[in-house]
């Protein structure tokens, strides 16, 4: 992540090109989360832009020794999206705009985000669901365990087991990749 460190340093110095590069690298991943929280493309686009404006304006508050840049950006995106979805003023505004607007804002999940991709799909369905709820849908653990109808302790262990399983999958992939690499070098 050496290149990231340099980009982030430039970002913190107010370099717009660095912002552009970081956007190219991370906007897709963040948009995937935001879209799954907002469940509305128009809103999600606004939230994505707002997220990167916050990243730009608050770049100096990111501290590399506390974790990855992506994690920091994810928290901003998640909070911004949750505020957008839960904001009561926005709700009133939508009601004021009448029936037409209401149908447009209906909770219709865009097709391409209806299901998850990658290694998470190899997990058991309740593990998938647990990760999806807290990570992609922005639910708190408390909200999520109610949503799934299991006790909080059970839900927590679902999350842990899911992550352990994911670690194994990524680990195996890594070993396979190294194997292929070594074979290629030989």
């Amino acid at each position: 992540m050496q290149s990231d460190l340099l980009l982030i340093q430039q970002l913190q110095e107010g370099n717009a090109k660095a912002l552009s590069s970081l956007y190219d690298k991370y906007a897709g991943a963040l948009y995937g989360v935001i879209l799954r929280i907002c469940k509305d493309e128009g809103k999600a686009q606004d939230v994505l832009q707002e997220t990167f404006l916050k990243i730009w304006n608050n770049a100096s508050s990111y501290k590399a020794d506390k974790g990855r840049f992506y994690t920091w950006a994810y928290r901003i995106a998640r909070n911004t999206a949750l505020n957008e979805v839960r904001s009561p003023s926005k709700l009133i505004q939508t009601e004021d705009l009448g029936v037409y607007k209401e149908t447009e804002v209906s909770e219709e999940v865009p097709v391409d985000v209806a299901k998850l991709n990658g290694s998470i799909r190899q997990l058991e369905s309740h593990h998938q669901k647990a990760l999806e709820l807290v990570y992609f849908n922005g639910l708190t653990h408390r909200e999520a365990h109610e949503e799934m109808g299991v006790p909080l302790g059970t839900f927590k262990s679902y999350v842990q087991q899911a992550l352990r399983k994911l670690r194994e999958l990524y680990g195996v992939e890594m070993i396979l990749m190294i194997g292929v690499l070594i074979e290629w070098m030989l």
Partner: protein
Amino acid sequence: MDAMMDKKEILESGLLERYLIGEVSETEQLQVERYLQDSEIRKHYGQLEADFERMAMENAVSPPPQVKEGLMDKVGSKTPQQPPINANRSALKSYLAIAAALALLFGISSFWMYTKLNGVEDQLELVRSQNDILSDELEDLTKNYDDVINTYEITSNPKTEKLIMLGNQNSPQATAVTYVNHTDKTVFIDAEGLPKLSEEHDYQLWADVEGEMIDMGVIAKGENFLAMNYIDHAESYNITIEPAGGSDHPTVERLITNVYLQ
């Protein structure tokens, strides 16, 4: 043992996961940041971060381009209130930049000089071979010059007699000129006016001394002005056509010209 339990508890509490996604109170946040001082917990957390990031990347959705355009417009309008620069770092950076630029410049100029050198070597080689050619030509010219000077000295010497030999009926168009110097005892012949002979024949010059023909030498083909053997008491000079390389005795019926000495 207590510390071990603590670590295990922390790892299994789900607190790190909630911290990661930003779902913790301020108190919990400080608590986690304290836990993260521990290298084992830190390592575990780093792994979680990497896995979450990867999972997110696998579920990325491309946003429409106008989102970025709008963002860059907004950012561009506010632009660079040049932030407090870390002087050392930027100084180091500019040194590095200068060093890199110099290295690049050095690389380019080395390459340029190398190609130049190759070109110069080629040119030097060309000049050398031209020089060789020129010096050969000069040598030839010098030789020609010496010959001409030599000829001039011979022909212009007041003690040199010039004898013109005209062809008889055997070779009517033939002319030759002999230059005789009785003081120096030299004879030269200008054979330019003699018709060309085939490979099998040569002209040969003879001196008539009291009725006997004495060999003065074969007139070498391709030479226009050459020294012959001086013979004392010659009464006439005679040219015959002989088999290539010349003969011991003249073939009289093939006499083409003769001249009497005074």
